[in-house]
């Protein structure tokens, strides 16, 4: 029943006051963000996958290898995975180099795919090798911990809120390194987070947990654009789109981003044309018009089709899913406007997008 590629995970746990029941099929490549509030079971899922928590009736296959099935349970130290814990987990009795070596020397030479130099270069920790963990900053420690995990040449990398214990400046320091991992290594990653900005920047695939169960799972762009459970990445529902910088406008300090055929003008971010970026568009920043306004301050006015409408918690508001070509976008409008404009699925309109945020 296991498909050759991909991760298939089924775990069921009944603690008093906490039921955990997930059945997931995840892609075997790219970054899958496991998103949800505290206590939703994110870390439990990761611990089950790592084998640190043994669920009697669990099932887990990773890219064709069965790690758990029936009475077969591969202990953690026999699973080719890397795990980065939330808090600094470096061994205090070893130097940075000793920490890096610890996992690497336990992997047979023939199975090593990530060299010491590569990991040190990727995470920028060459100058720290002879230091003890107690002398490192929080950000440096997490970079060493990530490099240490990579050096075991894992076939699955598990990151449990690796940035949660860090302040904003340290997060900004590490995020570029995580993006490089994403871009340069072929290792599938399960990334647990409750921070919307991290998910928006890094994830290709999204699993949303709530109260011990998965309420949504799928490619990030589609999952974020679902109306039945608008997922709030931060303060509001919205979508994250992938695109490339198509053009820079030096005079007005703007850049044109091409997201699978739909163009958006954004504030210039210093990226060269051709650079892959992500943009975030929140539902509250999108309004709808029947005609193209020619006297508006809004730069991004794009033809769109109404796909679906759904009433929100407050009866005055409606969330509208639009398609701009192939690109889904959410808009929040009033019920009165829906009535006045006659918005129904299939209606051709113009999406007026007041703000498009360049996030990476």
């Amino acid at each position, binding site marked *: 029943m296991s498909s050759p590629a991909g991760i298939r995970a089924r775990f069921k746990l009944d603690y008093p006051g906490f039921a955990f029941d997930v059945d997931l099929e995840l892609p075997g490549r790219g970054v899958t963000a496991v998103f949800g509030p505290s206590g939703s079971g994110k870390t439990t899922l990761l611990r089950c996958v790592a*084998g640190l928590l043994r669920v009697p009736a669990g099932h887990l296959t990773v890219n064709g290898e069965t790690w758990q099935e029936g009475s077969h349970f591969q202990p*953690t*130290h*026999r699973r080719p995975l890397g795990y980065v814990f939330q808090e600094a987990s470096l*061994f*205090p009795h070893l130097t940075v180099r000793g920490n890096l070596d610890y996992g690497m020397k336990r992997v047979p030479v023939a199975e090593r795919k990530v060299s010491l130099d590569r990991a040190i270069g990727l995470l920028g920790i060459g100058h720290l090798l002879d230091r003890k963990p107690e002398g490192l900053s929080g950000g440096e420690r997490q970079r060493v911990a990530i490099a240490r995990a990579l050096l075991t040449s894992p076939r699955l990398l598990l990151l449990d809120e690796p940035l949660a214990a860090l302040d904003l400046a340290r997060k900004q320091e590490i995020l570029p390194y995580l993006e490089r991992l994403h871009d340069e290594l072929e290792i599938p990653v399960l990334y647990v987070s409750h921070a919307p900005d991290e998910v928006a920047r890094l994830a290709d695939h999204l699993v949303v947990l709530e109260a011990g169960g998965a309420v949504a799972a799928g490619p990030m762009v589609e999952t974020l654009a679902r109306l039945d459970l608008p997922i709030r990445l931060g303060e509001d529902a919205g979508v994250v789109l992938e695109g490339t910088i198509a053009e820079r406008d030096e005079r007005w300090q703007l850049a044109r981003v091409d997201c699978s055929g739909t163009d958006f003008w954004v504030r210039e971010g210093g990226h060269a044309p051709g650079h892959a970026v992500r943009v975030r568009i929140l539902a509250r920043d999108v309004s709808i018009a029947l005609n193209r306004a020619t006297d508006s301050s809004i730069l991004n006015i794009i033809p769109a089709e109404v796909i679906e409408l759904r009433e929100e918690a407050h009866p005055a508001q409606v969330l509208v899913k639009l398609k701009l070509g192939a690109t889904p976008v959410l808009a929040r409008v009033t019920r009165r406007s829906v009535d006045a404009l006659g918005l129904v699925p299939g209606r051709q309109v113009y999406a007026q997008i007041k703000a498009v945020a360049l996030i990476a």
Partner: protein
Amino acid sequence: MGFPATDLGAIWLTLRLAAATTVLLFVIGTPIAWWLANTRSWWKAPLGAVVAMPLVLPPTVLGFYLLVAMGPHGPIGQLTQFIGLGLLPFTFWGLVVGSVIYSMPFVVQPIQNAIESVGSRPLEVAATLRAGPWDAFWTVLVPLARSGFITAGILGFAHTVGEFGLVLMIGGNIPEVTRVVSVQIYDHVEALEYVEAHWLAGSMVLFSFLTLLALHVFNPTWRGRK
């Protein structure tokens, strides 16, 4: 003047007894400490209490029961006779058995505390880095709990050197076999040999001081840091 030959014999015997006891206590006490530190079993409290009992029991009580148990009609005595070891009371190895039980809490408790303060996280980290349980025990737990193991060794050794009542009960007073320093001091005093008693007693005071000093020196500075 120095120590007469009988005193030297007593000192040598005492050191051999304490060394054998300490080695055995590491072998037996570490798994017990590990279990006590990690279990959530209902048995944790009763077993912990049994291990700690020598702290409060008079050594004569412990010695009395051990003497009965190791005697010809006791369960331990019958077992040792059955497997051809003879009887343990009034022998060196009888003293070792008694000392192991008597000094058990001084070894188990520091190791248990150290394992608890290390916590399970470093061992989980080791497992995600491909280290099996035995490998992780030696390469992560022992180095991180080092101060606890050193404290346990020093206390176990020193406490065995200082025992008296238990030795009298199960060892008697046989030169070179069971007459340890504390018993020898008693004999000197009984015989009004106060000069000899002073030499040995003074040595014990010095030994105790050095032991406690060593405990402070060997408590590494990283302990207690996160």
